[in-house]
């Protein structure tokens, strides 16, 4: 079982090396999908193993898979399979992946796996920073000034933001050292809890949360996100929006657990409520007048990160479980949406909303998953995001955050109008010109259909997932 912990970190590095050596050989196109399947397999295997026999540690305790880490690894795998399978290049696609591209995507997956599996908060930081390094050239892959600008903003803001988190982690280490046991191990820090110096811990936690919030795309530190997510190639956008944000958010959840053990729940709650509501407000405002559909999806990610922040602020078993399910549901549906956006771009040759018309009549193979994915993201039943949003609002109401939930609901309504309006403008209407196409082979639809079905079904048929999510929430201290 120990192999399941280190395989998803080590194998991507090896495959990346092989892909660079092999340059543009055909198999490198499948290499990333192989890595994604491996991460998913290890994630599901770890979920089962942790469920049966508890936390697994490897590499001298440096890697530690508790129920939460195992769940997050499975989410990374599931989203990566959707994004990379759905984003496999076709003869007509604009992105021609080479060996270097394949290597960077593999390293990206490896870094995300390390970020959720590492027990040492310092190593978590190194892994989160490594995701920036791996994706920098992927964001700029298309070339041109816009991609260059996006890559520059992404690397500078990402690294500077995450550097703030390092400052926080360093101070946390200092607090642990003055409490008599110098450690950065998350499990040990949570156990140390009340013996940490509260003044020091308060600064440390605030800085660490702020730093990781930059990477998680929470307002007001989100300004790199719409640029990077709209300029990157479709599968990379799908991975960044679908799961990288959640991986950074999982670091915030770890910091929150340390904070709760030391300072009680109110300190982080304030930070998260402010960040969450601000993210929702900014996303709602900028979605209304959006002209670019990839940026629209990017702002939708900011919106969902805001919902996650509110859920984390509420805390407790119900909201924490809802946050975890929301991570999975949002990851899958956002991956589908970015893959479809890539196909629309191949078809229309533009990312402007006004250049895309009557998709449902012209390209039903693209329009159907696009509509279904939009419904999922907007939180319509039967998709799971409906149930998780209801659960978060309900839990917030019962735990004294009713006012925040009221504002959030209003903002979600604005999002609903803004997002829905653009989606309808793109899909509805009679075809203006040109023959309608039946679309590609069924194999291209399969990953999208699979991901959307999972998102639709496990909302009300989550019984096999229930103990898994409960255990993951408990591992985060959500049962307090």
């Amino acid at each position, binding site marked *: 079982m120990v192999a399941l912990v280190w395989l998803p970190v080590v194998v991507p590095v090896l495959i990346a090396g092989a892909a660079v050596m092999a340059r543009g050989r055909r198999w490198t196109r499948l290499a990333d999908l192989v890595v994604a399947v491996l991460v998913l397999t290890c994630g599901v295997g770890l979920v089962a193993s942790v469920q049966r026999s508890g936390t697994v540690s490897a590499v001298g305790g440096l890697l530690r898979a508790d129920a939460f880490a195992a769940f997050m690894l499975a989410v990374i795998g599931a989203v990566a399979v959707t994004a990379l399978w759905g984003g496999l290049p076709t003869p007509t696609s604009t992105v021609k992946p080479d060996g270097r591209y394949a290597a960077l995507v593999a390293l990206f997956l490896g870094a995300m796996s390390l970020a959720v599996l590492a027990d040492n908060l310092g190593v978590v930081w190194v892994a989160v920073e490594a995701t920036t390094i791996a994706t920098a050239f992927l964001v700029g892959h298309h070339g041109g000034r816009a991609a*260059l*600008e*996006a890559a520059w903003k992404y690397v500078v803001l990402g690294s500077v933001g995450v550097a703030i988190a390092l400052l926080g982690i360093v101070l946390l280490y200092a607090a642990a050292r003055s409490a008599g046991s110098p450690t*950065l191990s998350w499990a040990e820090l949570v156990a140390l809890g009340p013996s940490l110096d509260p003044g020091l811990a308060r600064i440390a936690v605030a800085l660490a949360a702020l730093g990781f919030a930059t990477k998680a795309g929470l307002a007001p530190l989100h300004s790199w996100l719409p640029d990077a997510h709209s300029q990157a190639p479709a599968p990379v956008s799908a991975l960044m929006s679908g799961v990288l944000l959640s991986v950074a958010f999982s670091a915030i959840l770890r910091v929150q657990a340390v904070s709760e053990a030391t300072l009680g729940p109110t300190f982080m709650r304030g930070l998260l409520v402010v960040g969450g509501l601000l993210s929702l407000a900014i996303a709602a405002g900028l979605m209304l007048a*959006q002209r670019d559909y990839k940026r629209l999806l990017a702002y939708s990610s900011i919106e969902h990160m805001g919902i996650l922040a509110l859920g984390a602020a509420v805390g407790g078993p119900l909201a924490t479980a809802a946050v975890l399910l929301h991570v999975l549901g949002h990851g899958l549906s956002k991956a589908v949406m970015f893959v479809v956006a890539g196909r629309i771009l191949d078809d229309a040759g533009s990312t402007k909303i006004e250049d895309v018309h009557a998709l449902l009549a012209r390209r039903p193979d693209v329009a159907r998953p696009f509509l279904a994915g939009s419904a999922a993201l907007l939180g319509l039943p039967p998709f799971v995001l409906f149930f998780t949003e209801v659960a978060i609002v309900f839990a917030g109401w019962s735990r004294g955050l009713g006012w925040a939930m009221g504002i959030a609901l209003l903002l979600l309504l604005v999002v609903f109008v803004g997002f829905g309006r653009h989606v309808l403008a793109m899909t509805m209407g009679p075809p203006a010109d040109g023959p309608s196409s039946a679309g590609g082979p069924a194999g291209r639809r399969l990953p999208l259909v699979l991901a959307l079905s999972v998102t639709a079904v496990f909302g009300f048929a989550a019984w096999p997932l229930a103990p898994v999510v409960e255990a993951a929430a408990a591992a985060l201290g959500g049962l307090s």
Partner: protein
Amino acid sequence: MSDALFAQLVAATTGLLLLTAVLQVWRRSLHASIRLLAVQGAALAGLVATIGVADGELEVVAVSGLVLLIKAGALPWVLSRVARLTGATREDSPRLNPTAGVLLAAVLTMIAYAVSQPVVAADLGPEARAVPVGLALVLLGFLVLLSRRSALSQLIGFVVLDNGIATVAFLTAGGVPLVVELGVSLDVLLVVLILRVLTSRMQVATGGTDLDDLRELRD
């Protein structure tokens, strides 16, 4: 090492760190900025070595060698390559004139002293009293990042910020565990290398490295 000598060495190295950071805000010549960065890296390595010798920890002394190699050697070298590549010698149009910059630097240093009170009060040893210098470096790095327009100056601001974080780490905790230290150093080096590549692409695409030329993406 006697306590008095230790206190003097810590004061000298942290003083040098702060001085180089303030000069960084003031000077516009990019070559001077890069040389200041090398001096700052050497001062940081000196601080680490002092703490390592005082605590009798060989690991920390070894880390000081690593710091010297990366912060005083590799990073300034990469940056001077960028400067030669782009032909830039001066920060032409900073958003801040030098006098205002130095005044702001003074204000930021005072803020650093004010906000680091809880850290100083936490009784982490005599060297922790110099923590405000580390925070001042972080804030001054931010100032350089925000007030300069050329790509190279932003890179320099990022390195100053990172030096500040390293200073806080060594003053409060004698450095982070070795595996984290190695990872962090590697990450910073890679980020600077990536920005170097992006800078040269920018030079090709826009004929300059003024970041204000890149203004296509907005809502």
